[in-house]
């Protein structure tokens, strides 16, 4: 019995076979450089344009506002640095949050080292920012607000439309890292007043190595990649034609069944959450409940356990999952997201993230629950921290 249950869709998805098929001609028969003037490259130019339209349709923007990048990380770097260097004469304050992906967080640190005043908003126990704190932080010197759409670890969705409204009223550019949200939850850059948005194809069944930065027309953003005149002179580098085709096809496909798939996956996620809370004593759900989180995200803290131990036990049973514990990340500090929502080190080290996807079945969920329940009982039995925790409960 070699099971293979993949529950790390927030890390990456498979590339859907339909998408691979759509991409294939652009590796072999239609390989022309889109910048070349001969008609051999016409098909490639048209394919890129089609992908631009497919991405624009999902975000409700104009195709000309879609800029292809190599990744979500590049899109985030471009958004922050592009705005920073183009607006530093107006002001040097950039507001973001403590729970951003490292692509934003570390770019923020980079800019702070170069004289920008980068403010990191707190989040509450569910992982939501406070609009009041944001309002207070928005000084006249503020040039950019960057708040992620939905968190990659705990799935919490931010009040994006309200943030967009605040930024629009004050004439501040609003960027959102929507890498986890795009094609999975409804996004409308007009209604939500989003000026810039990052996304990445490999989170919605497209290929790795291709992303998008949406830039609202009229938003002043300097270039990040310098070189040729691709992407209307805004982003140099020969277009990753097959990747771009894959991104376009994937966002169209995934967004087209967003509602049905979202409901299906949320029901499985709720079965998983209910199973963990019922069958594992003293389990804690991290992040917002119900509709406040991504439909495919479950994140737990299991006191007395270290995350990597759970991952290895699950791995031995053929299950792929993730943790915010330090031990698996190669650093000594546990996840900055789990610390920002106020977890103790013990709870942050004992975290487990399970993210579901299109191929996840009820059988998978039940199998994971059975495996996890056994692992937790066995590993807690050998954990002095669990013993101390129980002793503490008795005293209290």
């Amino acid at each position, binding site marked *: 019995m070699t099971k293979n249950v993949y529950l790390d869709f927030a890390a990456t998805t498979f590339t859907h076979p339909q998408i691979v098929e759509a991409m294939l001609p652009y590796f072999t028969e239609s390989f022309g450089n889109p910048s070349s003037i001969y008609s051999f490259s016409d098909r490639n130019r048209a394919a890129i344009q089609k992908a631009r339209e497919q991405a624009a349709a999902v975000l409700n923007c104009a195709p000309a506002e879609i800029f292809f990048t190599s990744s979500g990380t590049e899109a985030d770097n471009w958004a922050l640095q592009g705005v920073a260097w183009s607006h530093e004469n107006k002001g040097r304050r950039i507001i973001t949050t403590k729970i951003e992906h490292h692509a934003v967080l570390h770019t923020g640190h980079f800019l702070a080292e170069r004289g920008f005043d980068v403010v990191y908003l707190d989040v509450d126990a569910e992982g939501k920012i406070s609009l009041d704190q944001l309002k207070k932080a928005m000084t006249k010197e503020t040039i950019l607000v960057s708040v992620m759409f939905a968190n990659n670890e705990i799935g919490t969705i931010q009040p994006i439309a309200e943030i967009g409204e605040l930024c629009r009223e004050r004439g501040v550019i609003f960027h959102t890292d929507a890498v986890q949200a795009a094609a999975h939850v409804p996004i409308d850059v007009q209604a939500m007043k989003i000026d810039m948005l990052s996304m990445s194809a490999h989170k919605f069944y497209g290929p790795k190595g291709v992303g998008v930065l949406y830039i609202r027309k009229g938003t002043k953003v300097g270039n990040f990649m310098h070189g040729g005149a691709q992407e209307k002179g805004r982003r140099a580098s020969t277009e990753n034609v097959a990747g771009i085709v894959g991104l376009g096809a994937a966002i169209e496909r995934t967004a087209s069944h967003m509602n049905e798939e979202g409901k299906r996956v949320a029901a499985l996620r709720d079965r998983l959450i209910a199973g963990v809370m019922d069958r594992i004593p003293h389990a804690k759900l991290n992040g917002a409940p119900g509709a406040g989180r991504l439909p495919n995200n479950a994140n737990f803290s299991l006191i007395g*356990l270290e995350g990597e*131990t759970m991952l290895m036990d699950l791995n*031995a049973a053929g299950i792929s999952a993730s943790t915010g514990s330090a*031990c698996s990340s190669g650093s*000594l500090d546990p996840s900055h997201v789990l610390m920002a929502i106020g977890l103790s080190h013990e709870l942050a080290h004992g975290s487990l993230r399970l993210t579901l996807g299109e191929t996840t079945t009820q059988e998978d969920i039940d199998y994971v629950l059975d495996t996890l329940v056994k692992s937790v009982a066995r590993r807690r039995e050998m*954990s002095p*921290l669990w013993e101390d925790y129980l002793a503490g409960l008795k005293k209290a």
Partner: protein
Amino acid sequence: MYSQTVMEHFTNPRNVGEIPDADGVGQVGNPKCGDIMKIFIRVTDNVITDIKFKTFGCASAIASSSMATELVLGKTLEEAWKLTNTAVAEALDGLPPIKMHCSVLAEECIHAAINDYRRKQGFEPWAEKTHDELVDEHSHHHH
């Protein structure tokens, strides 16, 4: 990332549990770092005749505890004291560099249990190196 020996000791750890009324108990690590190790020893005629451990930590912490307890079982206290973290790591067919501190914890925990025994017997504890000294000592081999 882990050797087969680490995986084996993680999956089937030896000497898990507690010794009621142990002759010596050592506990090292803290929850902040994500590792706590506790070792119980029974000492008969200066020899470790029984040993048990409980560990909160990652796979390499559990495997290091298991291996360290195996290595000192049946040894005199003087022999057990000489167990180094590198010996634990070597017996496990290596640990990833970032996980070497787990073997350091195992060495420290054995020392803590032995000194707890010595104190209970009214002897002077033997001089222990600090965790940082041990980690430093080790990291010189790597950097």
